[in-house]
């Protein structure tokens, strides 16, 4: 049973698409209801993943079936999740029903196609997260583009065609280069005995530096575009601004995570030396992205664009944390991915809600909405503060760990500069909030706005819940991902010299740095022995620094 869950949730939406074709186009209610049902069922079906997940570094719920065997190539239908993908899969299945609900009435035209696109998108996203076969991953990675392209292009705003085409081609350029590297990697792997495209074959291959460099760059480019990292970000504001609410929500919540996920899953552990070499570059770009996007966000006139730029900044934090390459940073980065999915997803929902009512997103068209829409104001405020990273909300935990991790690694100065992004995020978010929600309700068009209806409340409540839950009790999330991330650290740091570690006083270093002593760590132990400072050998999972005796 266990091994089919992943395939089930991935292809359930596809089955949904086929069934959708038999529902008459005029029956919009049924179309929406059916799609909602499919996504909800998918979500429910994905819950066993959390409950059944054993906290270790192994791939779980694995299914491996031969798929293509031709010539030198062997591709398998090889799926499975570990702590890294578990939450991203959950995020995807969780966000989909919300996305479907979010444009319940906003999309009145071509409902059938719209719903089909949403479901197809889900197939692509889930597939990409669960693939353990590089080729399979690539297929899903590309498949994702198509429905998103249509969602933006058909149901988008005024400038939608430009945005859709830009989105598609921009992403395509990167991913095709990745394809080249991927194939080259396979041939390299074949030479050292890799039997198929399964990801595990390619770890620890000790490629020569030049090869690593270009392959890493190819992978990194594809992922950087998706993230998006400065200066490859310009497709994002356009895509976000033009996409319908559900599109923006999914784009922000899940699609962008593909990029950062790609780094963690592929680019870094596959090419450790190149990762080390390019860490300064990527950290620099991340930090620039944080500051830059924040400053640009500050002066945006369109709420949605502002949120889009804030996404760029947030993802900059993720990248910084990931490339800190220590437990804190990576866990923070992963958590920040989830947080960003929840908070920014919620922000886009909020923008969608007012857009639906007013058909404008210009900040200057609003003002004083708090008076007219108190419930909305409350929710908006919570989400805003989550996005700012207020302690107690989810945003804080991730951001804090990222900065801490970066600070503890070699990226200290980057961390310090990035921390100033914390100030800027407060500036642009609160300024926007103030202009939209505070002040006098003097625009007559705003005076008749209705507060949230029950559907809108229903979509916001789970997100609000998560905002606080992850803010106050992120432990279950972190715990489940820890072993897998430790493995990533081990794989990526395999060849790293000790000198790259933080400076230590010789007298005061009784412990090994994480991951150095046991590169071939037996996966499956509850906590990574290699990741524990030897000072606390007997305390798996919990290591409060004791009082030095």
């Amino acid at each position, binding site marked *: 049973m266990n091994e089919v869950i992943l395939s089930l949730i991935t292809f359930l939406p596809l089955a949904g698409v086929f069934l959708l074709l038999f529902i008459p186009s005029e029956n919009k209610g049924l179309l929406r209801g059916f799609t909602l049902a499919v996504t909800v069922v998918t979500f429910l079906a994905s819950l066993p993943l959390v409950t059944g997940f054993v906290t270790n570094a192994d791939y779980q719920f694995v299914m491996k079936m031969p*798929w*293509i*065997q*031709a*010539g*030198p*190539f062997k591709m398998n239908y090889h799926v499975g999740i570990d702590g890294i993908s578990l939450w991203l899969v959950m995020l995807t299945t969780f966000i989909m029903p919300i996305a479907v609900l979010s444009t319940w009435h906003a999309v009145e035209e*071509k409902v059938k*196609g719209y719903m089909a696109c949403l479901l197809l998108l889900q197939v692509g996203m889930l597939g990409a997260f669960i693939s353990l076969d590089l080729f399979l991953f*690539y*297929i899903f990675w*590309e*498949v994702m*583009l*198509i429905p998103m*392209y*249509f969602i933006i*292009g*058909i149901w988008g705003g005024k400038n*939608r*065609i430009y945005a*859709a*085409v830009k989105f*598609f*081609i921009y992403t*395509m*350029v990167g991913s*095709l*280069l990745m*394809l*080249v590297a991927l*194939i*080259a990697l*396979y*041939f390299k792997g074949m030479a050292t005995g890799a039997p198929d495209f399964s990801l595990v074959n390619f770890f620890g291959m000790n490629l020569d530096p030049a090869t690593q460099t*270009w392959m890493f760059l190819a992978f990194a480019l594809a992922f950087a575009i998706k993230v998006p990292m400065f200066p490859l970000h310009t497709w994002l504001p356009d895509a976000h601004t033009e996409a319908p609410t559900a599109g923006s929500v999914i784009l922000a919540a899940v699609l962008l995570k593909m990029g950062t996920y790609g780094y963690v899953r592929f680019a870094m552990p596959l090419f450790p030396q190149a990762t080390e070499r390019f860490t300064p570059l990527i950290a620099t770009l991340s930090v620039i992205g944080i500051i830059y996007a924040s400053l640009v966000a500050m002066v945006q006139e369109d709420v949605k664009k502002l949120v889009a730029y804030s996404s760029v900044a947030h993802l900059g934090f993720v990248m910084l944390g990931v490339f800190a390459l220590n437990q804190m940073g990576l866990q923070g980065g992963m958590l920040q991915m989830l947080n960003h999915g929840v908070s920014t997803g919620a922000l886009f929902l909020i923008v969608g809600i007012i857009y639906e009512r007013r058909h404008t997103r210009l900040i200057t068209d609003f003002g004083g909405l708090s008076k007219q829409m108190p419930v909305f104001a409350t929710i908006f405020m919570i989400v805003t503060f989550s996005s700012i990273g207020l302690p107690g909300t989810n945003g804080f935990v991730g951001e804090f760990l990222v900065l801490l991790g970066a600070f503890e690694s070699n990226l200290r100065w980057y961390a310090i500069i990035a921390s100033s992004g914390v100030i800027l995020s407060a500036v642009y978010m609160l300024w926007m909030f103030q202009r939209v929600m505070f002040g006098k309700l003097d625009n007559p068009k705003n005076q008749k706005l209705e507060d949230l209806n029950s559907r809108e409340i229903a979509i916001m409540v789970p997100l609000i819940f998560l905002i606080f839950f992850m803010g106050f009790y992120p432990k279950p999330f972190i715990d489940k991902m820890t072993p897998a991330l430790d493995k990533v650290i081990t794989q990526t740091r395999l060849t790293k010299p000790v000198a790259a570690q933080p400076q230590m006083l010789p007298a005061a270093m009784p412990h090994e740095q994480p991951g150095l002593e046991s590169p071939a760590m037996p996966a499956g132990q509850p906590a990574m022995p290699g990741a524990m400072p030897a000072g606390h050998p007997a305390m798996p999972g919990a290591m409060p620094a004791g009082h030095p005796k």
Partner: protein
Amino acid sequence: MENIVIPAINMAVIAPEVILSLFAMALLLINVFVKGESKAYLGYLSIAGIVVTLFSVVSGWGCPAEGFSGTIVQDNFAIFFKVIFLIAAAMSILITDRYLEREGCNQGEIYPLILFATVGMMLMAAGTDLMTIFLGLEVLSVSLYILAGFNRGSLKSNEAGLKYFLLGAFSTGFLLYGMALTYGATGTTKVAKIAAFIAQAGINSSNLMLLAGMLLMATGFAFKVAAAPFHMWTPDVYEGAPTPMTAFMSVGPKAAGFAAFLRVFLVALPALKAEWTWLVWVLAVLTMTIGNITALYQQNIKRMLAYSSIAHAGYVLVGFVAGNAVGTAGILFYMLSYAFMNIGAFAIIILVGKKGEENNNVSDYAGFGYKHPILGIAMCIFLFSLAGIPPAAGFIGKFYLFSGAIQAGYIWLAVIGVLNSAASVYYYLRVMVFMYFKESTEEFGWVKLSPAFILCLLIAVAGVLIPGVLPGVFLDLAQKALFM
């Protein structure tokens, strides 16, 4: 004076060609003697002929044989290509009937001509003697000249036919001269013996005569496959020719050209591989780039697909440069999938077009996806496949071609290839932009589907999706079809 030795004639080897030729001739006669308005039955008869031929072709799979003292062979390589030709011919025939009716040039000769062209292609694929290859090529070309100019009433069609004819003949000159020089340098016209002679005599690229012969032959084949800079006829001819024939031409002769190109260069001239690889490398880059970039600007969808077909020739040349098993198998697979996707796309173009080849502009597709959702989806599938986006066959094909190049160490070539591929996405997407992102301005009243048409589209969709999702068996066949 020696005794004349009657060479071994093995008719079984050319059985498919014979069958198809007989059918073609019979159809010619029937066309003349049987009166009637509709010529559709000729189409069905030719389909029958193709099916019979197909069986005859396939039955030879796995049993290599040669005939006519080694001037023609029956090997898997030839069989794989022959299947492609037959599929292309059959699919083109399925969409011809409606088109001719609409354009008012309902003449039955078109079917036998298609069959003759197919025979020519089959000869090219099966020929192991420069002579046979040349003959096949000419049989094909002469038929195609007529097919391109088939719509006598249309000036565009006339022009296409005439241009094709003049340039085709011109290129034949080069090809022949190349063959002559090769003959002069090696003393034989049989590909296997050429290779043997080169190996035995130890001649290499310093032999200018052989080198010149090789290069001139390459230009001749490059013309056939529409590789830059010998591609310039392609857009004009494709645009002017009757659409079903454009579909046919863009697939069949290109595949045939590659079949001959591959056989001559890989079998006869492997010793000069270092020489011709660079040539093909340059050709590949030029072809991809020129094809794709020029296509970006096109408004006429037929012309756009013409440029796109140039680009696709470029991709295939990438596999050729690789010259290894993966690359070559990639060529075979790619030509097969290209047949499905390209003819499928042209089928839709026929449906959207009006008499006199109107409505062929991309902008005429505005809203098409909503008026005819199923056709729209089909068109999307073809276009995505052409763009090389999974899970369509076009992606797997490109994957294989580029894999070949990467395996052989031509990373930059692969990079140029994928960048081209990314650029190409723009113009394929553009069609979809109009199909889905713009509202229709007028009614699409002119789409009339016949069962044959539906069949053709079904085959095309299946032929794009099945090898796309489960390419294993097809790739396996392609691997087995290699003569190396």
